């Protein structure tokens, strides 16, 4: 095991860091979930086995995640969560951890599950490299997508929440929708998107997330 190191919250951390003398930021907790993933579905789901499904990412971005839920109708609690993911070590570990969080102690209520944040998952993992944090923690998003799917299937349309836009760079207040717009307008490189939006100009820590979004939208709209 060469990449044992304790990182706290992955703050400022990259996959490797020259100033912290740490080469890998995968904690023991991350490795445990990566090598022994919990709750993954090792086959195709059966008809009627689950009552909600959520999906996020695409293999072109490097990560794709599908989750399936069993929601108890009376209490609107998640009694089971199964997943499949195409992704790197931290994608697998963070999904595994999120699946534990959603189902432990009798399961989360949908309204609480909807509030799960990537930071919560990362905290339970003892930290992730910052670069990895942005691109590989997807389960909270998949969870919200699955919860909407549940409400759709159970015809509680008023409870469906469309994803609000998300501020990517708190300094420039640029959101993911701004980046999507820029890509649609033809800005297909980080440099061009920065020219249009000024994202990350004073806050370079967000650039990996921006690059990931650019690639995602490019793939989505231009293949």
């Amino acid at each position, binding site marked *: 095991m060469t990449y044992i190191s304790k990182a706290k919250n992955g703050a400022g951390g990259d996959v490797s860091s020259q100033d912290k003398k740490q080469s890998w930021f995968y904690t023991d907790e991350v490795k445990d979930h990566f090598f022994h993933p919990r709750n993954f579905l090792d086959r195709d789901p059966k008809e009627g086995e689950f009552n909600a499904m959520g999906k996020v990412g695409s293999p072109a971005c490097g990560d*794709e995640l599908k989750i399936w839920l069993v929601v108890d109708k009376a209490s609107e609690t998640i009694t089971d969560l199964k997943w499949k993911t195409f992704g790197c070590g931290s994608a697998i570990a963070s999904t595994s951890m999120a699946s534990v969080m959603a189902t432990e102690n009798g399961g989360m209520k949908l309204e609480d599950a909807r509030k799960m944040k990537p930071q919560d998952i990362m905290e339970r993992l003892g930290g992730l490299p910052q670069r990895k944090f942005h691109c590989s923690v997807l389960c909270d998003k998949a969870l919200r997508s699955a919860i909407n799917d549940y409400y759709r299937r159970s015809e509680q349309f008023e409870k469906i929440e469309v994803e609000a836009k998300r501020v990517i760079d708190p300094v420039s207040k640029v959101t993911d929708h701004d980046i999507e717009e820029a890509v649609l307008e033809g800005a297909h490189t980080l440099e061009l998107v920065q020219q249009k939006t000024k994202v990350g100009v004073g806050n370079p820590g967000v650039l990996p997330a921006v690059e990931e979004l650019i690639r995602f939208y490019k793939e989505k709209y231009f293949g």
Partner: protein
Amino acid sequence: MVFFLYLSGTMEAREVYLDNAATTPIDSRVAAAMEPFINTMYGNPSSFHMRGKEVRDAIDDARVVVAGVLGARPDEVVFTSGGTEANNLAILGFARKNKQHGTHIISARTEHPSVLEPLEHLAKHEGFEVTYVDTDAFGCVDQEAVMAALREDTILVTVMYANNEIGTISDVKKIGAAVRKFREANKKAFPVFHTDACQAVGALEVDVQKLNVDMMSINSSKIYGPKGVGALYVHRSIRLQPTQFGGSQEKRLRPGTENVIGIIGFCEAVKIADEEREQESVRLTKLRDDLIERILKEIPKTRLNGHKEDRLPNNVNISFMDIEGEALLLYLDAKGVFAATGSACTSATLDPSHVILALGLPYEVAHGSIRFSLGRSTTKEDIDYVIEVLPSLVEKLRKISPVRVDPKYFL
């Protein structure tokens, strides 16, 4: 019972280093050659006294040895800090010095970043135009493609000898011949032909006369020498502009006190690589083909990236469909097998391998690629061990994965 049989059939855990294309350990003979220069021969080769002169003599001797292996003259060898600097010096140095003769450069998309990025810099900031010729589906650049791209104002052609990721070898001899023919037909000194041969030393013919190259980059850390040293062969008729300034070392092309220990080690490494080349290539090719054949046979949904025969003796690059390379790399690491991936997740830019994408393959295939690069320490037992552990790791990750790559990429 099945479990028992499985256990008894399992080999003991071992450490298998299959990342020799990233870097190699230092050969003990190389270390021994370097030792005096670490401990006693500390002089500055530019100094005018005995301690300086003995080191100057050692560097001169090293240059003669390296030049000999390259079929070059000693004054045609410029020691650098490695392959990256050699490529930068060749491209930036040549383009800047010879700009008045033309501003067009030819290269390929599968080149190493230390070629691509200087080219991009020249195109973006210094008024050059770069044509990237297409490779075939295996990543091979052929001379027809280069000839078709040659123009009146082409001053430089730079095509790598053997690809670092997928191991594909291009016929630089033919490309060099085509460039020379073009020069003769036009009665001009341009274009010149540079090749990045960093992966080729110790594996392929590197005689610059036989290869028809005008500049060639080589490095030490991939041939069992120390890191941080390499060389650029520059034909004596070629003038370069330095990329750094401040001293007269290396004909002012590489100012700064020489990396003496590195150069001595590099020289020894080049010598050994040359001596053992033929025998070692035969041995590695056998192991390579064995590993490729067994992976493709024993693990479904896999593809070999690069050419089956025209590839480096030590390179195996396989895409494992439906899974992501970093995850497999870490699973392998836990089993003591050290390899590399073209997956985005291990790169600083989060981009998957530009080489595999340049072959016209989709992102998923690039993300799932693993490079096993064999070396002097690799044995048949190592290959057996990889084949022992690999299938179940792939199977486990495939079970987790929701992705099913289009069969056309692996059938």
